[in-house]
């Protein structure tokens, strides 16, 4: 009786509205201003508010019309023309048109744009990174942005880029209302402003560290939201997100640790969702190290690591190990001459080490990251397992780590790390986004190996039009990098998500996040 009374007393509040969708995010957005963010949570929230010119089909990295209904290029992909969707309005009632597109892109590209607010903390660094630099830079991919007419915009490029539509379709580049930016000024994107896009949800409020509240856009041009409201809550701790999901105070969440899979599967109110993998976790080997510069040593290291056993042990069925730097969704760009998986052969590895002149092995540092990342959720035990495999062939591994910011800095400073764990999560669905990030002209200087041939192939890859042409180029890249053994792919992880069973229609994107307008709540009480 006492328990009943206590329960009644403590649960007298109304329950959540039947059709309010509540997502548990692993933190707070940094900013709601497009182009000025790189973190996953900001992108997720912005996906609800803003549309991009180019969209991606549900659950894939294949492009489809967004705010642009079609796009064409000239023969060498140095000029891209986008036809814009007509009749679309921003949430503030202003019209979406070519002026709005030129305004948004110019803010990111032109350091002298009057509303770029560069002197007030805006950096738009993701634009510079994905598109080679800014207006006036010799390396800038974009040469000019032209309004052809009210529904047509043309981008003139300094160099061929077949991947340009994919790049500007990335979640960073949502189109915001110029009127709203001019009105809010440098406050735009902060909780003191009202972010305005054309997306399926309309911004209502943002309580930092707590939640972002949105309402459906009843006049959305695409699939209209099927819920009465959307709340995106900041719940940093993954165990607590699972608690919230089990308690029914959130409807769905992502970025759970692999060891939560069993708990999710054991709860009949929950459904486990394995998100498509779009990342790679790998070991980088530094050519500055006297042992590692020997080709046979690198091959021996690669052969000594039992990737399958490590992935089985630490990813709980939520990881794939193969011999490619590219995640499975981009497997079309892999070479058929490269085996599907890496060879694991400790005896052959030990012999190869002896052939290299080190029959008794040697000592080397292995650095592991101090933070959990989607590709390496538990870095230290994974590093210990790698060390154990290497010690079996006589290589004594000294495990080391340091603060994450320092870790990222030290890897690029001479002499760098002998061997270290790192990874990458893609921005858009093209092999260039993976190979370019770690082998490209502006990549980290952490392995001290960057032959001109790789740069030539990367240039060719960016210019190649169509999958067949691209696959030919990236296949060569795959073969070269596979044989070189400077970056040893370990895993393509599948981030674990989960939802209450009444959540229907959620198709997670490989690109990290998506708009939630397709989700419905069937029987939520």
């Amino acid at each position: 009786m006492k328990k009943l009374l206590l329960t009644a007393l403590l649960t007298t509040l109304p329950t959540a509205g039947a059709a309010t969708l509540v997502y548990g995010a692993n933190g707070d957005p940094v900013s709601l201003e497009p182009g000025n963010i790189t973190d996953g949570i900001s992108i997720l929230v912005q996906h609800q508010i803003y549309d991009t010119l180019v969209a991606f089909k549900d659950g894939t990295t294949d492009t489809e019309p967004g705010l642009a209904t079609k796009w064409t290029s000239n023969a060498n992909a140095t000029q891209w023309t986008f036809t814009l969707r007509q009749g679309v309005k921003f949430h503030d009632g202003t019209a979406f048109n070519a002026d709005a597109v030129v305004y948004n892109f110019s803010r990111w590209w032109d350091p002298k744009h009057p509303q770029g607010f560069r002197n007030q903390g805006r950096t738009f660094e993701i634009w510079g990174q994905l598109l080679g630099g800014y207006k006036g830079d010799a390396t800038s991919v974009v040469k000019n942005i032209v309004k052809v007419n009210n529904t047509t915009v043309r981008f003139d490029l300094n160099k061929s880029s077949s991947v340009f539509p994919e790049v500007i379709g990335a979640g960073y580049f949502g189109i915001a209302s110029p009127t709203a930016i001019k009105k809010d000024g440098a406050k735009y994107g902060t909780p003191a402003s009202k972010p305005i896009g054309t997306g399926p949800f309309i911004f209502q409020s943002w309580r930092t560290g707590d939640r972002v509240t949105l309402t459906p856009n009843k006049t959305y041009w695409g699939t209209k939201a099927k819920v009465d409201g959307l709340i995106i809550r900041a719940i940093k701790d993954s165990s607590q997100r699972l608690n919230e999901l089990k308690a029914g105070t959130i409807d769905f969440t992502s970025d759970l640790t692999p060891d939560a899979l069993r708990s999710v599967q054991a709860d009949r109110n929950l459904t486990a969702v394995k998100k498509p993998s779009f990342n790679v976790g790998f070991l980088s080997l530094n050519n500055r190290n006297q042992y590692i510069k020997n080709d046979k040593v690198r091959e021996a290291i690669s052969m000594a690591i039992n990737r399958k056993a490590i992935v089985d042990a630490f990813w709980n069925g939520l990881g794939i190990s193969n011999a490619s730097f590219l995640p499975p969704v981009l497997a079309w760009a892999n070479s058929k001459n490269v085996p599907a998986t890496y060879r694991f052969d400790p005896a052959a590895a030990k012999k190869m080490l002896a052939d290299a002149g080190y029959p008794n092995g040697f000592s080397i540092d292995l650095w592991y990251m101090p933070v959990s990342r989607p590709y390496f959720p538990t870095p230290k035990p994974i590093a210990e397992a790698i060390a154990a495999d290497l010690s079996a062939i006589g290589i004594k591994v000294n495990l080391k780590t340091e603060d994450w910011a320092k870790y990222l800095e030290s890897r690029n400073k001479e002499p760098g790390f002998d061997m270290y764990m790192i990874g990458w999560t893609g921005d858009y669905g093209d092999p260039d986004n993976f190979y370019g990030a770690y082998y490209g002209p502006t990549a980290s200087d952490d392995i001290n190996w960057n032959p001109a041939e790789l740069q030539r192939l990367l240039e060719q890859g960016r210019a190649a039009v169509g999958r067949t042409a691209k696959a030919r180029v990236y296949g060569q890249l795959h073969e070269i990098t596979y044989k070189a053994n400077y970056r040893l792919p370990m895993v393509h992880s599948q981030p674990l998500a989960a939802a209450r069973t009444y959540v229907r229609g959620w198709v997670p994107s490989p690109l990290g996040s998506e708009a939630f307008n397709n989700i419905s709540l069937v029987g939520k009480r």
Partner: protein
Amino acid sequence: MGSYVIRRLLRTLLVMIGISVVVFAFVRSIPGDPATALLGERATPAAAAALREQLGLNKPWFINFGNLGNPLDAQYPRYVAGLLQGDLGSGLKSNIPVRDELASRFPATAELSIAALLFALLIGLPAGIIAALRRNSAWDNLATTVSLVGVSMPVFWLGLLLSYFFAVRLGWLPPSARLGNETVLEPVTGFYVLDGLLRGQPAAAWDAVRHLILPAIALGSIPLAIIARITRSSLLDVLGQDYVRTARAKGLSARSVTLKHALRNAMLPVVTVIGLQAGALLGGAVLTETIFSWPGLGSWVYDAISLRDYPVIQGGVIFAALVVSVVNLLVDLSYATLDPRIQYR
């Protein structure tokens, strides 16, 4: 008394200036810079250098010794100039003014800390008193055991355990956050329980109370244990004093002797500990706020440290130091109330 308070406030001002210099230099001495931390895996040397320049982090720290340069064109003078105008800067990437964040996050932390302290006092004081009065009894042993568990149990573990048991298993309380999904409350003071009442929304106030219970227990567990232990030992010490024996000899009731004579004198060290706990609560709130998704100062500054967000760290630490200084001043002043022999001049 008045001049004492003014002197203490002036001293606090000097302490704040000192802290601002120390924090300013300290955060910049931590290896790893904001540009690298912000860029994450994208942090190539060129990208980090470009971002560093854009953020103005390539300027000298305190004085610009560059040729023909303005000596005050350095980071600290700019920061102080902003401070004098009430501008604490903005988050390096978020551009959210630190002042705005402090205004919304301090009440959250303060509300949680007060609730935790109330919980610690409500349980810790009686537990300590009973343990002292029933020395070596089962009650004493129980209080000692509970104190030990409270001190030694990691807050994050206790927090998750509480949340799992009371929210997931029993469904009595919400697992985390300050308000339920459906509660709409426009803040007045930022103290949600109070705001619910001020806005005439008792349901919202009750919702805020329900959300406070678990984090307050988690955060209050260590202070509870310390308060119980100090109360016990202090009271035992006082109960052995001559004047207590005299009071008893005069025929005063045990209740009167304990509450009027012994307890008041035993409270001095307890009050000192409570003052110290104010600082500890601000520090301890980091874990509690993270576990319970509590949008307070602790989790905010903690995140800023990992991102090397200098303006946020500076603002948060200086503000926390100010709060601790003021609380300690209040504690010092309360001594005079408890013990009339203490006078401040």
